[in-house]
């Protein structure tokens, strides 16, 4: 018995539908078809009328979700690919994100964004938009990297009274497996990072699919005798600065790894925080590793060179450890 990251997402939605009558799902092709990635497979049959197909109208999809949330519902919106959320951008950052601040009426929506690169998907089906949304006040932005987190954090998202941007990584959907789902009661709460691997020579702060590249890189460095500590952010807004600083205090070295474009983004925010708040903890310059500053290439040869990989991470780490 084992369960994938994608199945965890499906199970979380099933549980939410089962336990909370205010929950409904809205998205393109999610009803009978079960969604482009099958994240809602069979749910329309199990919960008739509560899993709704939407027209190709991302702006209206979000407006509808926001309106329903104002009326006390808890919609989960699936955007077919994160990249298409560019068309729902206005409703997300200007309507959903400001609603509670402006009116005191909460806007509990969960926006599922199938995110990140996969081979052959190209510039418009590969984007990681977490930093875009995290810039705006009023949104919570989650980036689960494990099967258990995909499950418990999606359940948390649905329970939260604020709009949550839930960035799922498509590369993890099918191949990432765990023996069973965790009991949500035993899971870390939203807003807490996890020390996935402890070490003493350097800290990698990362999230989503890059956690797994980082773990491989750490394996690699262990052969050279270096123990790398790895912090999985889990939530990028809010960021758990305390856990990061605690780790850097132990290791004195920080590499922040993200899959998004290099200008701005999570790695800049994390490095800037550590530089400002943990300057004295650092024994070497904090470093960043991001994707290259071009659109995400379609051909796998180019794509593999565009994103950070275990090998690239290991190389930067070696450079830092020589410092």
């Amino acid at each position, binding site marked *: 018995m084992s369960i994938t990251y994608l199945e965890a997402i499906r199970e979380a939605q099933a549980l939410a539908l089962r336990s909370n009558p*205010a929950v*409904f799902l809205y998205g393109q092709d999610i009803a009978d078809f079960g969604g482009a990635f099958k994240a809602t497979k069979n749910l329309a049959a199990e919960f008739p009328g*509560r899993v709704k197909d*939407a*027209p190709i*109208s991302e*702006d*209206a*999809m*979000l*407006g*509808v*979700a*926001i*309106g*329903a*949330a*104002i*009326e*006390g*519902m808890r*919609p989960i919106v699936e955007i077919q690919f994160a990249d298409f959320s560019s068309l729902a951008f*206005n*409703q997300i950052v*200007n*309507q959903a994100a*400001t*609603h*509670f*601040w*402006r*009116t*005191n*009426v*909460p806007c*509990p929506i969960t926006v599922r964004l199938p995110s990140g690169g996969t081979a052959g998907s190209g510039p418009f089906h590969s984007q990681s938009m977490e930093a875009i949304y995290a810039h705006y*006040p*009023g949104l*919570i932005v989650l980036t689960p990297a494990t099967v258990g987190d995909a499950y418990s954090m999606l359940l948390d998202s649905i329970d*939260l*009274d*604020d709009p949550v941007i839930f960035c799922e990584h498509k590369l993890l959907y099918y191949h990432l497996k765990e023996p069973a789902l965790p009991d949500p009661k035993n899971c870390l709460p*939203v*807003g807490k990072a996890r020390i996935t691997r402890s070490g003493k020579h350097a800290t990698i702060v990362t999230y989503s699919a890059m956690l797994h590249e980082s773990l491989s890189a750490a394996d690699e460095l262990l052969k050279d005798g270096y123990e790398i500590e790895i912090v999985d952010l889990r939530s990028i807004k*809010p*960021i758990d*600065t305390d856990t990061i600083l605690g780790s850097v205090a132990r290791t004195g070295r920080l590499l922040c790894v993200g899959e998004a474009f290099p200008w701005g983004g999570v790695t800049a925010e994390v490095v*800037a*925080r550590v530089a*400002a*708040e943990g300057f004295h903890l650092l024994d070497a310059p904090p470093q960043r590793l991001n994707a290259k500053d071009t659109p995400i290439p379609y051909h796998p040869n180019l794509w593999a060179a565009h994103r950070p990989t275990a090998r690239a991470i290991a190389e930067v780490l070696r450079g830092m450890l020589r410092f």
Partner: protein
Amino acid sequence: MSEPTITTPQLEIARATATEQSLKDLFIDGYRWMLLARTLEDKIASLYHAGKIVGGVYLGRGQEAFSTALGMSLQHGRDIFAPLIRDQSGRLAFGEPLLDATRTYLGSVRGPMRGRDGNIHRGRPAEGIPAMISHLGAMISVVTGMLLGRRFRGIEGQVGAATIGDGGTSTGAFHEGMNTAAIEKLPLVIAAANNQYAYSTPNTSQFACADLADRAIGYGVEPHRVDGVDLYECLRVFSLAVERAREGHGPQLVVGKLLRLSGHGEHDDGSYVSKNLKDSLLGRDCIEVAQQRMINEEWATAVDLKAWEEEAREKVREAVSCAQQEPKPDPFSERWVNLASAWLIEGSSSHA
């Protein structure tokens, strides 16, 4: 503060059973809402020009009949009314307290937006008045979602109305919102006030169809056309449209033709508005048209009109002076809390 007495709509007007009496009452109530809105906005305008208003001022002059009729056709506490910048009179007719307006214009912290957002953006979503964002068209899908939410909760027979201008119909949000409401066959009424201009831009640079109501058929939506200057016609058409929506016929698009009788905002003299239009039937002042009808029909005397004007001035005076005496927002007592899940707000001050 006493407001005009009838605040719930009287749908009878559109029915064969309508009596002269109820019709007259309804019309008079409508007129008094229009008058109250106009009086308020005249006052706000003069306060603006005296530098007493926080933020911009955008008025509904010339659009009171259209907006009032919509507000009166809906039931406060039951239906949804999503106003835009020209809907002061619709807000009042629907049931928004006059003080909500003066408090936001004058910067009282007791206004519904508590100083966080301003004037025309004010709303009370929990009471069926969503708080507009500036981005035109964006409220249509929100009202659609509110209606869908109610349907999920088993509530039927409640109508949601969203207003839009001629310019706003060019937004993708208008298209997506109306289309989605039509697919779901929701009781949405879209009130499109074609006041001939979007800011300075005339209809000819905004669309190329003969009549905006021609859009309806392409969405499977029922069209209505109305002389937006005539309160009587507006009441008739809106009560019909609201009734059609309430009875399950899906979204209704009501297009009113009229003219904005001021600048886009009080900073704008509107000098670009064509003289031909001003001199045309569209350029009539709906308040005067309503007065004329009441006189002609002998529904009111010149003495009544004077009394109502005095009454409106008095209410406005009261609401303005109340708001003026109230405290302004204070950055130190402001909690700066932007999440309902307050424990997730980052406490660290060094990056803020």
